[in-house]
């Protein structure tokens, strides 16, 4: 998929894919483990960001939108398989930090958006 083709709906779906992958990892770890708790927290954050994206309005033709959406796609593609590997959570948390930051950049260029915490 080329960058120009990434609509807001594509990004909502991409983030949804990340969330469902996080759920696979969460469902493979003991409830009380530190890794599980951190993944639970990341899931909450990504869920809030996906919700904010669903409510946001963008001009999808702007350079800022295209750059931020390309970053999200790039990071998500790179981490899609590794995210379910519960033996490599350190790398996953690092990638999630980058993904969250890229989504925040995207929300910053929205014409109208509710910013999640």
């Amino acid at each position, binding site marked *: 998929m080329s960058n120009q083709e990434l609509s807001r709906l594509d990004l*909502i779906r991409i983030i*949804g894919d990340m969330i*469902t992958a996080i759920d696979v990892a969460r469902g493979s770890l*003991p*409830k009380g483990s530190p890794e599980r708790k951190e993944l639970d927290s990341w899931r909450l954050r990504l869920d809030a960001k996906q919700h904010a994206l669903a409510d*946001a*309005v963008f001009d999808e033709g702007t350079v800022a939108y295209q750059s931020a959406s390309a970053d999200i796609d790039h990071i998500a593609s790179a981490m899609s398989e590794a995210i379910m590997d519960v033996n490599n959570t350190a790398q996953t948390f690092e990638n999630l930090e980058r993904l969250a930051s890229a989504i925040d950049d995207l929300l910053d260029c929205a014409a109208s958006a509710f910013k999640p915490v």
Partner: protein
Amino acid sequence: MSELFRLIDRKAVFSLVAVCVLEGCANRAAYRTPVTTFQDASSVMVHSARIYLTQLNKIERDAYIRRQAANNQHIRLDEIEKTQSFSPEEIAVRLEALNELSRYGELLGHLANSDAPERITASASDLADSLQRLSDKVSQLARRPTNSKFVNSAGPAVKIVGEVASIAVEKKIQAALDRAILSGEGPIRDLIHAIRDDITIAFERKRNALSAQRVDYVDAYEDTVGTDNEANGDQRRQRANELIAYLDVWESFPLSNPHEGLNALADAYSALVAYAKSPKTPTDLSGLADQIELFAARANRIGGVIQQLEKNF
């Protein structure tokens, strides 16, 4: 001799009128089967879309409540309010627009099928009235940017459908049918796409919520593992069965995505337009029928899965 010419002239005029009338009837008859199929499949698709739009807020509300329960947290109504994507009015107007799309499909069906102008007049007049009310409600949504795509696409579609209804009220059946199909393509496509986008978001949010519940079911099962007595064994088996049933729902959920069905609805609409613009040969009709059947197959498949999901979960 002049009497003979008058007779020939009258015969020619009669033949011309007969050809025009028959051609009009033939044109309407040619539309009949595909428009009826289009109308039926549209109803299925609108019903499926209605389920998603109605669930839009419920999905967010339920996800919040489940999250709080899973994390042993308090539940607050003001927090629930914050989770809602659309106000009840915003959902109601979208549902009304879907309803009008469905009624518009019915009007197309009447135009193509019916030889009873009174029936068409009543149906068109009723549609024109409700479109006026819808138009007023749509304009009230314009204040919120999130509604901009829907508002911008609903306006022109409402206008075109209103014009078609007005022509139909005057009993100009073929003219109304041609106007409906030729003028309505762009605006109707845009409206279908705007509603499709709202529903795609609802689908993605629902996928998100259902995915979270997978973990809840696994956790519930895991809570029963470890202590091996009879009561615990029964509970463990029960939770295993609940997990099995839930994962079946999860597995079939992607098939319920209305996105493809609404795209097929827009494509079917374009096929109607292409047919109306064509010389209307048997090949043209066959092409139209194929496209409409494709749409009907998708609509029925999606509608079936959604109904099954509603029944089982």
